């Protein structure tokens, strides 16, 4: 097959069996590319199981820095006989299929529009290792060596990474070196290296870092000053807490006493987890939990309490594919509505929508400020794609001059000097935000009774309708105030005057921007874009939409949930908000967005705008 040489612009996918230790090998590969200065975006596609089922790792290598999923596979590393048939099918015409040739491929699976590269990995490992566990682990490292040769990558970079990885455990380094070198040599010997796809050193990642969103959230909670965390394990949120714990062990253990400046409680379930967060927050600590859809559902009652009794609470929702248990190891943005309006009665919760690890870090830290300032739950809406995959990100930054905003809290002195009666729910400043006190502050002043029932300004129980309405209206006012303090949307304008816009949020960002890059200029149109960062919506959100004749709303759920939020909160004609929906559990691709928008534009020039698919 004759091919063009393609440098730093292809998609490679690894097909493995889970539980075989492939993940660390695959990560070694992608980090090596990254170290060579080439942008990457890896995606794990794993089953809801521990051992023995197919699992994939897809890495997009892209010089120009497009980081969404592209769609299509150029090189497949097919290490799993179970899934081999479809893995072979998935390779794009002109691509490669790299495999373990210890066992020959079933001839019926062969295609002649792609190249097959066989390396007898198992055979080789059998020669080298006796322990079957070592065999399995090093076979993985070996194929990294193979790829290093095939793509003409720098072997030294791979070895450097191995050394760093096993720092302090030097005796592990040598055998790993050996495995990677063996693979490298085998490839060189058996095949013409390099192949048409290549990785060349660049300087295109700059200061960027490679980190997953959950680690960023966990770190954000440390920087944000969380001292209490209560949680219940659930994929894909568990590693938020794992990382919080890890960084706490590093930064929050008193050197002298060995005591912890934090408390992490593994709760008995999600109801208890959010209950603990609310109890701790009520008592003046910064507290948070992390969960996913089913946990969010279980937290409904407590979230309503926190809204109505005005107690801060931070919750990281790492969304996965619903409804119900759904696809626990697949991604979606389908908790948008249930998070925003969680609980019975009239309730609304502040939500933040990070798109990158940097935003995960910053918004998690910010969530504590917002929660304490507005005395209400704040939900950081991450998802599996962002949370569990390494994402390239701007490095994290922190302004040491800034202190935490602990919100309106009367301290002992304040109470001491106070002449008037303390009113827990009095709107003293006209912004809807009342003052609170921590338990135990002052011997005689400032104590109040917190409850989920209706109360007057002095926190006294009442069933009086006017008092109730007054309080509910104040909560609305507080909500309005919050809309001026949450992160503003990121608006990207084209240089031409522009009547059509695209709205995205969270992990749809990268693919949307890439799609726009291709679309702008096509079909004689150009598209502005806006990344929504928070709910309540900042004024700019409404303005952007009003400024455009119509906007596409890109999201990863079936029911166009963000679009619903937008039309609920504003007075837009829903016809102007065109849903672009991707919800099969895989991260949305630039291709999908581009095609959907293009089709819609082509179609609307001939058909009426109101289309039945909107129902």
């Amino acid at each position, binding site marked *: 097959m004759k091919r063009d040489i393609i440098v730093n612009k292809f998609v490679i996918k690894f097909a493995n069996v889970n539980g075989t230790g492939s993940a660390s090998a695959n990560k070694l590969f992608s980090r090596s590319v990254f170290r060579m200065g080439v942008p990457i975006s890896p995606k794990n596609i794993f089953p809801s199981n521990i051992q023995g089922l197919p699992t994939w790792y897809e890495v997009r290598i892209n010089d120009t820095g497009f980081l969404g999923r592209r769609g299509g596979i150029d090189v497949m590393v097919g290490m799993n006989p179970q899934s081999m048939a479809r893995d072979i099918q998935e390779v794009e015409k002109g691509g490669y299929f790299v495999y373990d040739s210890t066992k020959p491929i079933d001839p019926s699976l062969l295609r002649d529009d792609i190249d097959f590269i066989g390396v007898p990995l198992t055979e080789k490992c059998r020669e080298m290792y006796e322990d079957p566990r070592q065999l399995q682990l090093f076979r993985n490292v070996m194929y990294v060596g193979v790829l290093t040769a095939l793509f003409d990558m720098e072997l030294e970079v791979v070895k450097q990474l191995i050394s760093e990885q096993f720092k302090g455990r030097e005796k592990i380094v040598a055998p790993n070196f050996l495995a990677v070198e063996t693979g490298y040599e085998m490839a060189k010997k058996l095949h013409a290296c390099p192949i048409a796809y290549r990785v060349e050193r660049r300087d295109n990642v700059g200061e960027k870092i490679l*980190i997953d969103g959950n680690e960023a959230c966990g770190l954000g909670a440390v920087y944000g000053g969380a001292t209490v965390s209560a949680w219940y394990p659930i994929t894909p949120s568990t590693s938020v807490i794992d990382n919080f714990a890890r960084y706490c062990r590093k930064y929050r253990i008193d050197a002298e006493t060995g005591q912890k400046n934090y408390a992490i409680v593994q709760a008995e379930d999600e109801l208890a987890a959010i209950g603990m967060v609310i109890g701790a927050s009520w*008592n003046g600590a910064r507290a948070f939990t992390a969960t996913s859809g089913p946990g969010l559902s279980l937290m409904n009652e407590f979230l309503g309490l926190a809204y109505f009794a005005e107690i801060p609470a931070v919750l990281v929702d790492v969304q996965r594919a619903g409804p119900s248990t759904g696809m626990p190891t697949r991604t979606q943005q389908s908790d948008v509505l249930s998070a925003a309006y969680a609980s019975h009665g009239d309730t609304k919760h502040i939500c933040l929508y990070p798109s990158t690890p940097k935003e995960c870090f910053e918004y998690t830290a910010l969530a504590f400020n917002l929660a304490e300032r507005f005395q209400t739950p704040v939900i950081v809406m991450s998802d599996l794609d962002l949370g569990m995959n390494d994402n390239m990100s701007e490095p994290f*930054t*922190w302004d040491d001059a800034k202190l935490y905003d602990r919100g309106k809290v009367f301290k002992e002195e304040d109470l001491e000097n106070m002449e008037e009666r303390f009113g827990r729910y009095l709107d003293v400043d006209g912004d809807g935000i009342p003052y609170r006190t921590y338990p135990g502050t002052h011997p005689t002043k400032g104590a109040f009774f917190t409850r989920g029932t209706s109360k007057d300004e002095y926190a006294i129980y009442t069933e009086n309708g006017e008092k109730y309405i007054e309080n509910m209206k104040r909560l609305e006012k507080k909500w309005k105030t919050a809309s001026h303090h949450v992160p503003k949307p990121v608006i990207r304008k084209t240089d031409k005057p522009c009547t059509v816009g695209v709205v995205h949020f969270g992990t749809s960002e990268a693919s949307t921007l890439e799609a726009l890059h291709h679309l702008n200029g096509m079909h004689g149109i150009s598209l502005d874009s806006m990344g929504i960062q928070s709910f309540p919506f900042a004024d700019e959100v409404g303005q952007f939409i009003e400024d455009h004749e119509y906007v596409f709303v890109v999201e990863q759920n079936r029911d166009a949930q963000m679009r619903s939020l937008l039309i609920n909160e504003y007075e837009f004609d829903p016809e102007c908000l065109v849903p672009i929906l991707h919800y099969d559990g895989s991260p949305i691709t630039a291709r999908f967005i581009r095609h959907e928008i293009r089709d819609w534009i082509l179609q609307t020039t001939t058909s009426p705008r109101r289309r039945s698919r909107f129902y």
Partner: protein
Amino acid sequence: MSYKIPAFRHPNLPRNELGHTTKDYEGAVSTLCAGCGHDSISAAIIEACFQKNVPPHRVAKLSGIGCSSKTPTYFLGHSHGFNSVHGRMPSVATGANMANRELLYIGVSGDGDTASIGMGQFVHAVRRNVNMVYICENNGVYGLTKGQDSATTDLGSISKKGEPNALEPIDLCSIALQLGATFVANSFSGDKTQLVPIIKAAMAHRGFAFINVISPCVTFNNTPGSTKAYDYIRQHMASTNTVDYVPPADEITAEFPEGTDELVTMHDGSVINLHKLEKKHDIHSRSSAISLIQEYRAEDKVVTGILFIDEETQDIHETMNTTDRPLRDLGTKELCPGGAELDAINDLHR
């Protein structure tokens, strides 16, 4: 309709070491039914706090939902209180305790709140040995929702013997003991001489102190075959199908010597047989506490007193090795690793 007691203080009231009178430990006027056992428990809490010289504002009162869970409004008006959601007080209390280990936590719950909807959280609060006093005001009925059966023992067990066998009641003390609770007591709302010292001991205990208090519900603890002569009223109510009549009633008191039995008659005439443990009872054997309950139950008696204490216990903060300072008092400085560290962290991800 919950308002503060007027500030008038009787000059001759006795004062404790802090100079407080019992008035300083009172709360808003109760809105429970006249004669409700829960009010007696509130009075005992007030007395215990007074006697133990507890600074009122250093207490945090927490509860779930129910008549019992309303009571924190009616004691310790200078303490912060939190009337949370039904059955979930243990988690809220656990969280609160995490935030500040220095306050005294008093949790109040009911038998519905603890043994039904709250069972899971109760079990795990026991297991974690959260440092708090947990009082279950056990009336064997759902008071606030008007009289449904609860999962705990029937108060008037003796007079109900003839009834068809329903579900086995849950004995909260036995469960707590089985789960490794480090302080377990049983008492009766009307027995102040026993209850006040028990609450004081519970407050002194470092760890989870569970007190089950039998607390008669005036209104809904009605045995069908009641011996009391208000049949007429009952019939009237049954016929009109509108159950909104609560007969006037007085608190049931039962103060009797240690080591003796006492037959206590409930509002509806049913009878409960209490046995009060003697001081010399060995409170350090978990297994004998469990058997004790069983033995007396076999005789249709309810044993009261402190059943078990483990003084050698670790509360959750000790288990976790958290700092001695309240976590909520730590500031940006102590908590935030700062910008320079962040640069180092960034580097690890390149």
